[in-house]
């Protein structure tokens, strides 16, 4: 094999791949940490199988319902194809906010709402179940933002309120006890009409190691209200929106 061929090929591969984000290692560690409870014990396989069966049944029911009632968004009538998932933000976002567009948005982010830098944000759910069951909470870091994804297995919750929080000490909803998160400032996410103990068995205290979102911790899961406190290393702009299939509440914290 010609050394020139190998050298040229590797040069091209270098151009394609670049170098990984310095946060990749921390991101993977965080993902492993969050997955820890899910892999312990022999019940994991049974749980997965039950989940799959439930997902198939729910999927069939949803598709059947979708075809009956939502024929206007069949693939042939869908909006212009896009490389990014469609995002929906509630119109109830506070009008007094001063949106500041993200600097360095990637094309796939172009359909997402702008970041806001002050005040509360509300997201009203559509076609909400009586209680939306959280079944996964994930974090990730990307160029421009750290992301929290809260996944629901049966639809959007009734309402979500997000607001900046002074300091990183939060009062736990049911017990009244105070917890202090890592970071210098915080953000409070209140999910109304949701439950995080029926379908969710992951971590409720996630330390990410990211540049801005450093920790998130469940501070309430009681009587249909779920609250998460976010510990941030500095004040940051943020945005929240829903993605579908499956339903996910996405919270992006600007990190640049």
């Amino acid at each position, binding site marked *: 094999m010609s050394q020139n061929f190998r050298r*040229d*090929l590797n040069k091209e591969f270098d151009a394609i791949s670049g170098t990984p984000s310095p946060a990749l290692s921390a991101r*993977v560690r965080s993902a492993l940490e969050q997955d820890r409870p899910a892999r312990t014990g022999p019940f994991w396989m049974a749980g997965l199988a039950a989940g799959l069966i439930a997902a198939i049944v729910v999927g069939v029911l949803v598709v059947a319902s979708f075809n009956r009632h939502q024929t206007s968004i069949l693939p042939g009538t869908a909006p212009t194809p896009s490389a990014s998932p469609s995002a929906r933000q509630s119109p109830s976002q506070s009008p007094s906010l001063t949106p500041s567009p993200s600097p360095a948005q990637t094309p796939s982010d172009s359909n997402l709402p702008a970041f806001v830098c002050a005040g509360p944000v509300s997201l009203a759910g559509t076609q909400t179940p009586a209680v939306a069951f959280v079944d996964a909470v994930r974090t990730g870091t990307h160029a421009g933002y750290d992301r929290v994804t809260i996944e629901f297995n049966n639809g959007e919750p009734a309402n979500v309120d997000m607001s900046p929080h002074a300091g990183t000490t939060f009062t736990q909803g049911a017990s009244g006890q105070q917890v202090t998160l890592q970071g210098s400032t915080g953000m409070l996410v209140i999910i109304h009409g949701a439950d995080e103990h029926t379908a969710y068995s992951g971590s409720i205290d996630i330390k990410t190691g990211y540049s801005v979102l450093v920790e998130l911790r469940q501070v309430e899961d009681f009587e249909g209200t779920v609250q998460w406190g976010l510990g941030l290393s500095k004040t940051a702009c943020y945005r929240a929106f829903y993605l579908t299939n499956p339903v996910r509440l996405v919270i992006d914290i600007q990190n640049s």
Partner: protein
Amino acid sequence: MMSAVMEQRPSAIQRATEGDADSFAMLIDPLLNPAYRLAAVMLSDRMAAEDAVQEASVKAWRNLRQLRGDESSLRAWFLSIVANECRMTRRRRWWSVVKSADVESDRRTDGPSQEALTDLRRAIARLSPDERLPLVLYFYLDLPLDEVARTLRVSPSAAKSRIYRAARRLRSDLTLEEVS
């Protein structure tokens, strides 16, 4: 005495198999860079590549008991999971296109062999992710042939054939003997 103590101490892979996430994270940390490079070339999308590596890491963690062999087997096993995750990513994102723009990025316009490089770049862009995979493993990550074979889950001779077939699509005058 010391050797007896050492023998009794569980290896990192044993600790990881018993549920120690930190041990597993330490084991795969050196593999994240090659895993990312493999995923980035397969997907032509750097952000998606990092997502794929994260997902693959979690899947590897969940299925660590399926690893046959010791730590020396870990790299090929992990990279095969990353490659599979890349395939799944492409299936999930059926609407996505191969981002040839990424392939075109970072190009340098100087140098005597620019034309040849441009041809090579175009030829790479025409390869499917599964055709790129053996090239990445063998040439870019510099894995020995038997490890390429374990990653691809084929025999060494089949791995050699795949490398050769893919490389021939980039350089038509290549001979099988040159893939040694």
